[in-house]
């Protein structure tokens, strides 16, 4: 069972706990961005099969879902655009221009994740 054994913090520690989770989320999302970069590089050099495209789409989906929750709204929007692009790539021939566009989106994701989150 994956019911995570997260101890319940007292309410006054909520901000601290969320901040710690946000830091973990940022690290996880940086890894996801790196995984997407590697997938795009492989797509350009040797191509990807349908399963690889689907995996990349799912990674972009998770990035979109979690980044915005932790103060990276722009990353969420960029990742959603990337997710749509990757979904199309999985079912049709991928043009070099589309890979370039995906790469540019990923550059922007990297720039945004390098900044401090907006947790206001």
């Amino acid at each position: 069972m994956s019911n995570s054994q997260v101890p319940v913090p007292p309410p006054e520690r909520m901000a601290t706990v969320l901040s710690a989770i946000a830091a973990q989320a940022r690290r996880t999302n940086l890894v996801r961005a790196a995984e997407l970069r590697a997938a795009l590089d492989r797509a350009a050099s040797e191509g990807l099969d349908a399963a690889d495209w689907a995996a990349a789409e799912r990674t972009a989906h998770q990035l979109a879902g979690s980044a915005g929750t932790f103060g990276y709204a722009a990353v969420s929007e960029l990742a959603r655009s990337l997710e749509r692009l990757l979904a199309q790539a999985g079912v049709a021939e991928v043009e070099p221009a589309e890979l370039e566009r995906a790469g540019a989106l990923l550059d922007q994701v990297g720039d945004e994740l390098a900044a401090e989150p907006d947790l206001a």
Partner: protein
Amino acid sequence: MSRDDATTTGDGQPTEMVKVKPRKVLVVDDDDIIREVAKVALEVVGGWHVDTAVSGDEASRLAAVDQPDVVLLDVMMPALDGPSTAALLRADPLTRDVPVIFLTAKTPLTDDQLEAVPNLVGVITKPFDPMDLAAEIRRLAGWEE
């Protein structure tokens, strides 16, 4: 009156404390971070008991045993997605009436997806604010303050 409130007389004086179990929420998402933040937020802010599941299969097993008051269900998951998981819950007599709230980063859902889940009580869009999540679930589930 809330499940957690005291019973009062007409003049507002408490007469007895009603000891009730906290609400139970099952959070289903394949993203570790989302499960963790939702669990913490709902336990601390909502004061509820929260179980988590990483997949639709695990969710259906857990829901049959734990009988949650609501299932917060990610739409896009590998293998069994949210709508398919909701259908699985619906097919089991033990979980058929459990309210479902979809959690999705992909909007909007199609009418077919929404209509296929009779006990769907709402949709929460990712990203969400952890501090507002409990209030949003309470509102969608129709739970009293």
